[in-house]
């Protein structure tokens, strides 16, 4: 297991270098002159030249890449034009909100998706299976941003059950930071009303965000359960008189969960793309909204920073899922 973990970790470092190579390439094919960009909108020629030398933009490509890596490692991620702050500080401020939203959303997707997949498989081709199928088919097709808007329209404006958007009410003071996650911090500080308020705000965006992932999880879990339920050992368990619940929930589900896990890892990428849309709809102060606002005004460094952080987040999740896979299935451990 230790060797397996180390191998995965080394692989991830290389992937991360690959990601940085992509962002580096994008910043060099951009039509604008990077030196002019770094120097700011109202810099004169001499200033631009000074920046060119300072950032090493007159050196060969591989040296520039090394300089780029060094810059990122020392926390110098450039400056954002529209927030006028260091990109790194911005990312540290906004990332926890995105992390909270995505994690909450994936929890909903798994908590609903796995049982629904099991139910659909156990009651194959019965009315309940068909009802669930409508959910899975529409889940992948509905545009997430539109779903969010319609949810706002109905649940926030028409019924008034949830707030329209934002992380918490304007007048509420956020709890003093410990983990920077609002829900966790407010609990740790004992501010229960803030916790409830934060929970109230996160429900609509998280539900809108989880839809496609939920649909995929149900689909895969149903297919795997159907296959597992036909295996000899299940028939054997049935013949031994085990209860249906025990057979389904313990013996079959355990084996069906492996492919489902792989699907969760895959769909996590969708969610990180989707969070950009959902944050825009719900005014969620996360990294996605930050990236979009930067992209609209062609504010370069924040976009690259957000891309690196979201890409890294995706790689980390897949790393963790790989490890869990390795723990659950010894065959995966050995074949690497």
């Amino acid at each position, binding site marked *: 297991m230790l060797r397996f973990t180390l191998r995965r970790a080394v692989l991830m470092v290389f992937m991360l270098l690959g990601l940085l190579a992509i*962002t580096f390439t*994008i910043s060099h094919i951009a039509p604008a002159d990077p030196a002019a960009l770094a120097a700011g909108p109202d810099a004169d020629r001499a200033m631009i030249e000074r920046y060119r030398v300072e950032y090493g933009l007159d050196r060969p490509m591989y040296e520039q890449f090394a300089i780029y890596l060094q810059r990122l490692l020392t926390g110098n991620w450039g400056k954002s034009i529209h927030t006028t702050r260091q990109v790194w500080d911005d990312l540290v401020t906004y990332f926890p909100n995105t992390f909270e939203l995505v994690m909450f959303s994936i929890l909903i997707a798994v908590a609903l998706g796995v049982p629904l997949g099991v139910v659909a498989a156990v009651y194959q081709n019965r009315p309940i299976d068909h009802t669930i199928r409508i959910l899975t088919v529409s889940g992948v097709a509905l545009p997430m941003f*539109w779903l969010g808007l319609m949810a706002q329209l109905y649940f926030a404006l028409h019924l008034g059950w949830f707030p329209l958007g934002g992380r918490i009410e304007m007048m509420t003071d956020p709890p003093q930071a410990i983990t920077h996650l609002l829900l966790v911090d407010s609990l740790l500080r004992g501010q229960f009303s803030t916790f409830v308020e934060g929970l109230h705000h996160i429900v609509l965006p998280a539900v809108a965000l989880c839809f496609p992932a939920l649909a995929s999880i149900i689909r895969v879990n149903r297919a795997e359960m159907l296959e597992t339920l036909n295996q000899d050992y299940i028939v054997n368990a049935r013949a031994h008189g085990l209860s249906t619940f025990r057979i389904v929930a313990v013996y079959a589900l355990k084996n069906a969960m492996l492919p489902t896990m792989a699907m969760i890892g895959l769909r996590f*990428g969708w969610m990180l793309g989707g969070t950009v849309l959902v944050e825009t709809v719900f005014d969620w102060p996360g990294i996605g909204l930050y990236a979009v606002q930067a992209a609209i005004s*062609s504010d370069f460094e924040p976009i690259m920073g957000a891309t690196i952080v979201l890409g890294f987040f995706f790689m980390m999740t897949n790393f963790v899922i790989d490890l869990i896979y390795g723990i659950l299935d010894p065959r995966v451990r050995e074949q690497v």
Partner: protein
Amino acid sequence: MAAGTQDAALAPSFAERHAGTIRALRLYARTFARNGSAMLGLAIVLLFLTTAAIGPWIVPFPEDAAGAIHLDIKLQPPDAVHWFGTDEVGNDVFTRVVLGTRVTLQIACIVTGVAMLIGVPLGMIAGFVGGWVQEAIMRVTDVFLSVPGLVLAIAIVGALGPGIVNAMLALSLVWWPGYVRLVQAKTLALKNEIYVQAARSMGASSLRIVFVHILPNCTSPIMVKASMDMGMAILGAASLGFLGLGAQPPFPEWGAMISVARTYLPDWWWYSFFPGVAIAVTVLGFNLLGDGLRDILDPKHRE
């Protein structure tokens, strides 16, 4: 004269020569026709294609495509004349949704097409040549797959500047890795098939093996993936349009329409509602069609 007629009678007819193919196609058609959701998908896609083809001639207010202004009838609710209501400058939303099919189809075809043009050859080279070439291609593919697609697309559009052409370019650049994975795996498997080995032992060139023996056997999984990807590309382009990074208003693109329309919620709901329904139905159609195609082309998935 008589000899000619005799020849014709002896020579196998078209139906006889292609009996195998015809039988297979008939089986496909029957399997497909029995699958209700696949037929629904086909119907939606056909409706979508027809609308895209004849759209400009059937819409009630063709001048509303871009630029027309009738402030006296702005933001009217749906009625018998304006089926989907009107927008903030009095343009007919129905007209603009119908005209949006053409733009959407263009985007979907170009994004999927470019992704295939990059991904299929790379996958084939990787699988066929093997060695360090394969290693290099697959590692680059892995890196691209390990970044969330939409995020990378936003980064590329951010670098190139917002606009529909840049949005299509960005989506194409993040879409090809899936095809590399698919085709490489398939090529690896096919390379060791006996008929490929036999062709090679008879002195067939690598190019001939690739084009005559391997590529035709990759077409069905590629078709299935392409059909699914059309739907996903439509969603991606609409998402970029919604974020203000793709097509720019007043261009009749569904995502861009919603990006303007959301500022008119909740009172003028029809303005954002109908373009969204159009996206959802179209994507649903391509997904169902892709599912149906997979059921007939990939026997493992037949139930």
